[in-house]
Structure formats: C-alpha cells, structure tokens
C-alpha cells in the first residue's frame, strides 16, 4: 500500500561508491509503502556550502536542484546524503533570508523557465522516517529485528550542524539511535559520535583521516559496538576504507564494520540481500551479521 510519494535527490556518490546506500534505502522505502521518484535532470549540489558572504555563484547548483523539484512538480525533495542535505538546506535558507541574493541567482539562471522563490522544503530521509512514517510504525513493520546486534550511531557533522538546519541536537543527537532501537538493535552511545572524520582531507592528507578513524572507531568498540552506522557517504568512505591506513599507523587497531543506516533498516524490513549490497562495504559486515543469525 502506498502511503506517501516522494521526490528523491540522489547526489553524485549514491550513484557511485555508495550504491549500497541508495539501493538499500530505496528498497526499505518501498517496504514502508513510500513511492519514490528520482528527480529528473538533477545536478551536483556542490557538496559543500560556501561560507563567505559574497560567493553567490556556488549557491547556484543547489538552487537549480530546487528549481528541478518545482518542475517535478513538487514542493519538497528528499535526500539520503548528509552532505547534499546540508548544502541544499543551507542554500535554501540563505536565499530565503536574502531576497536580493535570490533575485541575482534567478537572473544568473535566466534560461530557466521556472523562477525559484524559496518555496521548496528539503528533508533528510531520517526526518521522513521519524516524522512522516514514525519509528513506532517502523518497529511494527520490522519483521526481522536486529536482535542482539550492538550498534553505535555516528552522526558526523553535516546532519546536525549548524544548529539552524540540523535535524537533531548538535551536541547530543539521538535520531539514529532511536531508529536503531526501533529496529531491535542494542544501542551503544559513544562520545565521538559527532566528531569530524576529517571529511575531504581524505584527498590531500589521508593520514589525518586515518588517525581520526582510529580514535572514533576505537571509542565505539571500547564501549561495546559491533558495527557503526553512518548517514554520510564521505564519513562512510573515511571510516570504512581508511581503516586500512589506520591499521598501518596503529597495528593493534581492530577493524569494525561500517554500515549505512539504510542497510540495517533494509535488513530488518526483510529486503533481499542483493538490495542491501553488503558486498560493497570495505570491512566485511557479513561475519558479525551471520553470527547473530541476521543474514
């Protein structure tokens, strides 16, 4: 039964390294009765929000995504990627608060038939799950609960900061933990859950990222976590793939599987394994999931 229709903005990485994020998320949404339509002619959002006052040109890409949403036609768009969410939402708030900037951006995109007026809402998938579907409903639909799996939720930066656009408390977010609890997992809280993984420093200084990965994951493991869930494909790349470099720097380091929250959601909702794509996770999560009889 279809209970809701959503326009979906994937962003670049969900079509590349993070196919396990996209496919598991879309399968889970179908199971929850949500009909998802991918935005037509979408473009890259730019991945980061420009922080200087006069740099309007870098807000053009996210605003163009919102124009495409209006043309869908729709008045809201959902994304799963924490960085896309942050960039789209901040650009939206920026032009809503500054009519002159909005008008300049519309002028720059004079070939667009649709003018943007600040009239699109941006939602992260977690907001849809919590506020539109409800964790209680998800709990009832989770036919294969994550019994006995100890999960630490890593929020990173862009889902919760800055405060004005974050989907939860920037210092002590709970939304991922609440979702994991509703899926039947044992929730592990840890102090590094909002500590930056080093983000795009992974390009010019992977060592910094490997050190952070070591600190963040060690903290989760010491508190009992068996897997760590994330909502951002850059966090996922850093925390998962950079464990290889962390091992080189710290030979005593013990690896730990990193999963997209959608993969565990899809698992609990009994999505087929070919949609969960555990084969794409760098540190193999299958042994721990098998030991708990979850796959």
């Amino acid at each position, binding site marked *: 039964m279809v209970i809701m229709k959503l326009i979906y903005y994937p962003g670049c990485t969900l079509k590349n390294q993070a196919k396990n994020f996209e496919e598991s998320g879309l399968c889970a949404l179908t199971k929850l009765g949500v009909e998802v339509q991918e935005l037509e002619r979408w473009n890259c959002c730019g991945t*980061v929000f420009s922080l200087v006052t006069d740099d309007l040109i870098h807000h053009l890409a996210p605003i163009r995504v919102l124009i495409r949403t209006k043309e869908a036609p729709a008045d809201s768009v959902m994304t799963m990627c924490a960085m896309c969410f942050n960039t789209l939402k901040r650009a939206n708030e920026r032009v809503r608060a500054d009519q002159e900037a909005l008008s300049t951006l519309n002028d720059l995109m004079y070939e667009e038939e649709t003018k943007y007026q600040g009239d699109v809402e941006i939602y992260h998938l977690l907001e849809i799950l919590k506020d539109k579907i409800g964790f209680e409903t998800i709990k009832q639909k989770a036919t294969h609960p994550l019994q006995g799996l100890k999960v630490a939720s890593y929020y990173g930066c862009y889902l919760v900061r800055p405060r004005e656009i974050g989907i939860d408390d920037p210092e002590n977010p709970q939304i991922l933990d609440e979702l994991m609890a509703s899926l039947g997992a044992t929730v592990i809280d840890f102090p590094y859950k909002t500590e930056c993984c080093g983000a795009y420093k992974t*390009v010019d200084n992977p060592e910094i990222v490997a050190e952070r990965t070591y600190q963040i994951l060690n903290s989760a493991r010491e508190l009992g976590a068996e897997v760590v869930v994330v909502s951002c494909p850059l966090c996922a790349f850093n925390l998962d793939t950079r464990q290889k470099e962390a091992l080189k720097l710290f030979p005593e380091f013990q690896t730990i599987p990193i999963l997209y929250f959608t993969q565990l959601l899809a698992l609990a909702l009994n999505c087929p394994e070919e949609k969960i794509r555990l084969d794409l996770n760098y540190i193999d999560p299958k042994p721990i999931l098998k030991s708990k009889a979850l796959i």
Partner: protein
Amino acid sequence: MRINISRKNINDSFVAKIQELSGQNLLACYQCGKCSAGCPAVSDMDLLPNQIIRYAQLGLKEELLNSKSIWVCASCMTCNVRCPRGIKIAEVIEAIRQILLRKRKDHIDPERLPQDIRCQVPPIALISSFRKFTS
C-alpha cells in the same frame, strides 16, 4: 616568538576584508578558548582557532596567510555551534582561505594528486576538496 602589534596593522584593509567576507564581528571574541578546546583538528594546527581570531583582530596578515591551520580546518562547525559569543569561526577561516584562493594560490593541484587517490576516493570527496582548496 616575537609579534609586533601596530595600529597600522589593526586598521589595515585585511581586517576589514576578513570581516566583510566572513560576515563576523571579530571584536566580539573574548578569548575563552572554547573553539580550540573542542576542535578535532588542533593537533595538526600551528595556530589554534582562538588564536586565528586574535591574530585576525590584530591584522597579523602574513602569519594568517602562511598558517597551516587554514588548510587543516574542514569546516566541521563544532566551534561555530559552541562559541558563546556567536562568532562563526569556520567562516573566518574560510575568508582567509578565500583571500589566498582569489589570488590563485591554490592549496592542491588536482592534476598532481596520486593516481590511487584519484581513482579511489568518491566524487563527494574530490568535489568538496576542490571547492575548498582550489580557486
């Protein structure tokens, strides 16, 4: 380390430019150090976030433009959400980066990135890195 403080530096257009680009009032900072206490990147920084603000107030242009810290900050916004004076420190650091990038002084050269990095990292990492570190 000896630092020369002068009225000339404080009134220099560099200070005004940082305030204009960042949209922040640098003099609001009272040096509590909370930004540096929570910053996950301080171990790789030569100037701590609170020092960057102090140096910016004093117009210490060369020290700021040559500091390693501005390329270590990944705009994680932890300092911004914690500042009791509401100063957006990440915006100030971005303004300093922008002053250099607008003179084509890039921090990285995409063509010289090692092949394995270029092939391995996801587009989200490449695009954000180029947006922050190249002009």
